[in-house]
C-alpha cells in the first residue's frame, strides 16, 4: 500500500513549528507501524488492542499535555496534532487517549486533591493505570444535569448509587471519574473500580467505535472513603463541562485525521480504477466534484482548528470556539467518509478499505461529547444569549 500522505493544499505546514511537524510525523510513523496493520482485526472482533496502552505511554501520548507528574508539558497545538494522527488510524485509539488525557488526567490535575494527583497521575501517564469518565446515564445524555446518580455522605465517606452508560474504557479501567448529585449539588468522585458495589459490564454488539471499549457503570451501595471526593469539583456541572472542552478540542483535530485518511484512500482508488473506455474514475466530472469538495473542507477545517489551538495556547479559546470546530469537523468527517465509501463502489463495503470503518465510527464521534445538534444550540446560545435547550 502507498504510504499515507496528509493533505496540505495551501501551506498549512508553513504555519507549524519544526517541533510541531516532528510531533505529527513521529505519531504518523507510529500509527503506520502499530495501528494500521492491526486495527481492522480489532474492529471486526469488537476489541481494544491492549498493547497500545503501554506503547502510547512509551511514546509519550498519555499525559502529553500535562505539566509535572511525568507529563509531557506539550502545547495544545502539539496535542491536537497527536489526536489528528491517532484518529487517522481509528477513532477507537483516539478515544482511548482522549478519555485518559482530557477526561481523567485533566480533572485529576485541575480538581483533584494532592493525594489523588500523587497517586494517580504518574500511573496514568506511564500506562500502569487506565481511567474512564462517567457522566452520561441511560436517561440523561444531552442533559447530564438531570442525572439520577446520588452520593450520600456518611460518617467517614460516601455511598454511591446509580448507573452510567456509554462509558469509554469502563470495563478496562482502574479508576473512574464519576459525577453524582450530593446535597450540595453535582460533584466528581475518583473511584477505584475494584470497590465493592462497583461493576462495569461491557456494551457489546456496537456497529461503531468497535475497536474501543464502551461500558455501563453500575454502582450499588458503593462505599468510598472521604478522600474520593474531588475537592475542586464544587463548580458542579461546570467541572464536567470544562473536561469536555478538553476532549472536544482533541476530537476536532482527530476528525481532520479521519478526513485525510479517507481522502487519501479515495483519491488513490479513483486515480487507479478505470471505467468507461479505460478512463480513470478520477477523470469524470462528478468524481472531481467530490474530490474538490473534500479537499476544500479539509483545508477549511485545518485552518479553523489550528487557529482555535493557537488561541487555546494563549488561554483565549472559549467553549463556543471549541464547540464550533467539534461540530463542523465531525460533520464533515462523516460526510467525507460517506463520499469516499461511495467513490469506492462495491469495494467500499469491504474491510479491505477504511472509509466504511471511519464512516461507522463517526456516527459515535458526532454523537458523543455533545451531539451535533446540541453544538448548534451551544453556539446559538452564544450568538443570541437565548438558551434553546429546553
Amino acid at each position, binding site marked *: 500500500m502507498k*504510504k499515507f500522505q496528509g493533505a496540505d493544499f495551501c501551506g498549512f505546514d508553513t504555519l507549524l513549528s*519544526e517541533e510541531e511537524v516532528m510531533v505529527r510525523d*513521529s505519531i504518523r510513523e507510529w500509527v503506520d507501524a502499530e495501528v494500521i496493520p492491526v486495527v481492522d482485526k480489532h474492529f471486526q472482533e469488537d476489541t481494544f488492542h491492549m498493547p497500545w496502552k503501554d506503547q502510547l505511554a512509551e511514546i*509519550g501520548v498519555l499525559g*502529553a499535555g500535562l505539566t509535572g507528574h511525568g507529563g509531557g*508539558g*506539550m502545547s495544545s497545538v502539539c496535542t491536537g496534532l497527536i489526536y489528528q494522527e491517532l484518529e487517522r488510524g481509528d477513532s477507537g485509539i483516539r478515544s482511548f487517549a482522549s478519555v485518559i488525557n482530557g477526561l481523567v488526567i485533566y480533572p485529576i490535575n485541575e480538581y483533584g486533591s494532592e493525594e489523588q494527583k500523587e497517586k494517580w497521575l504518574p500511573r496514568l501517564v506511564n500506562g500502569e493505570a487506565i481511567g474512564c469518565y462517567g457522566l452520561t446515564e441511560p436517561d440523561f445524555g444531552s442533559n447530564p444535569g438531570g442525572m439520577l446518580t446520588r452520593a450520600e455522605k456518611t460518617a467517614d465517606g460516601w455511598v454511591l448509587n446509580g448507573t452510567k452508560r456509554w462509558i469509554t474504557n469502563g470495563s478496562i479501567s482502574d479508576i473512574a471519574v464519576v459525577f453524582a448529585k450530593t446535597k450540595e449539588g453535582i460533584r466528581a468522585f475518583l473511584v477505584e473500580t475494584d470497590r465493592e458495589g462497583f461493576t462495569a459490564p461491557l456494551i457489546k454488539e456496537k456497529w461503531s467505535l468497535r475497536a474501543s471499549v464502551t461500558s455501563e457503570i453500575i454502582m450499588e451501595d458503593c462505599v468510598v472513603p472521604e478522600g474520593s471526593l474531588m475537592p475542586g469539583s464544587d463548580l458542579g456541572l461546570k467541572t464536567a463541562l470544562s473536561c469536555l472542552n478538553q476532549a472536544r478540542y482533541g476530537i476536532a483535530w482527530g476528525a481532520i485525521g479521519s478526513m485525510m485518511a479517507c481522502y487519501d484512500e479515495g483519491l488513490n482508488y479513483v486515480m487507479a480504477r478505470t471505467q468507461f473506455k479505460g478512463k480513470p474514475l478520477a477523470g469524470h466530472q462528478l468524481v472531481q466534484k467530490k474530490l474538490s469538495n473534500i479537499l476544500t473542507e479539509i483545508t477549511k477545517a485545518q485552518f479553523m482548528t489550528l487557529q482555535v489551538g493557537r488561541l487555546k495556547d494563549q488561554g483565549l479559546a472559549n467553549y463556543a470556539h471549541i464547540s464550533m470546530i467539534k461540530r463542523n469537523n465531525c460533520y464533515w468527517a462523516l460526510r467525507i467518509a460517506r463520499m469516499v465509501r461511495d467513490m469506492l463502489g462495491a469495494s467500499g463495503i469491504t474491510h479491505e478499505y477504511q472509509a466504511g470503518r471511519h464512516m461507522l465510527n463517526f456516527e459515535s464521534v458526532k454523537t458523543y461529547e455533545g451531539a451535533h445538534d446540541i453544538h448548534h444550540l451551544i453556539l446559538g446560545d452564544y450568538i443570541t444569549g437565548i438558551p434553546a435547550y429546553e
Partner: protein
Amino acid sequence: MNILVLLKRVPDTAAKIKVAADGMAIDPAGVEFVINPYDEIAIEQAIQLKEAGGGKITVLCLGPKAATKDIRTALAMGADEGILLVDDTAGRDAVATADALAAAAGDVEFDLVLAGWKSVDTDDGSVTHFLAAKLGIPCVTLITKLELGDGQVAAHREVEGVTEVVEVKLPAMLTVQKGLVEPRYTSLKGIMMAKRKKIDERAAEAGEPKIRIRTMTPPPPRPEGRIVGEGADAVPALMQALSDEQKLL
C-alpha cells in the same frame, strides 16, 4: 564513551524519483526526505551504548539546511549534539564529503564513529572508508553485532557463509548493517528535549571533487505484464514463457 554518528538526509525509499530538467540530479520536488535508514540503525546503536555506559553522542551531517530536521530527529531519539555542515551541492562526491567530515570530526572528541554502511540514495558506500583513512583509524564494515572491551571493540560481520569477528583498537569506525539493532520511535518527550539541544551549523569545507556526474537517466519503463492464460491449462504456456523467453528457469 563518546560516539560520533554520521547522518545523511536521503529521499524516502518509498518516494517516486524523477530526474531533474538538467539531467544531472534528481528532482527534489514532492519528494519526502528522511534519515538514511542505515544511519538510523547507527544512531540507535549509539544510544544503546550510551544508555549502558554513559558518554556523549554527536551527530555529524553534511547536507542542505533542511537537514536540521533530520539532526533534530536524531537528537529526539537520544543523541546529545548535532553538527550540520551546510552544503547545497547535490551529489557531492565521496572523497570531497569525507574531507569535509574529517575537518569537522577534528573538533569532536570521540572513541567510536558509527555510520550506516551505505546511504540508500547513491548506494556508493565509500564515504566511511575515506573518512576512516583520513582520520587514521581502523574501519570495520557491515557489522551486525558489537562487543565493547577495554579500549577495543569486537565487531561481528556476516560474510559469505560464516560470521567473522574482528577486533580493533579504539578509536575506530564501524559501519552498520540491518539487524544490528532496531531503531526506536522518537518519543514526544524526546522531541521536547531535543528543542534545547545544540545544533552547530557551519559551512562545509568540502575538497575538490574527484568525480563528476555526467548524466542521470531513469531506468527504462517496465514492459507491461502479459496474461498467458487462466487456470491449470495455462501452466505449460507459463513454463515456456519463464524458461524460453525470460530465461528464468
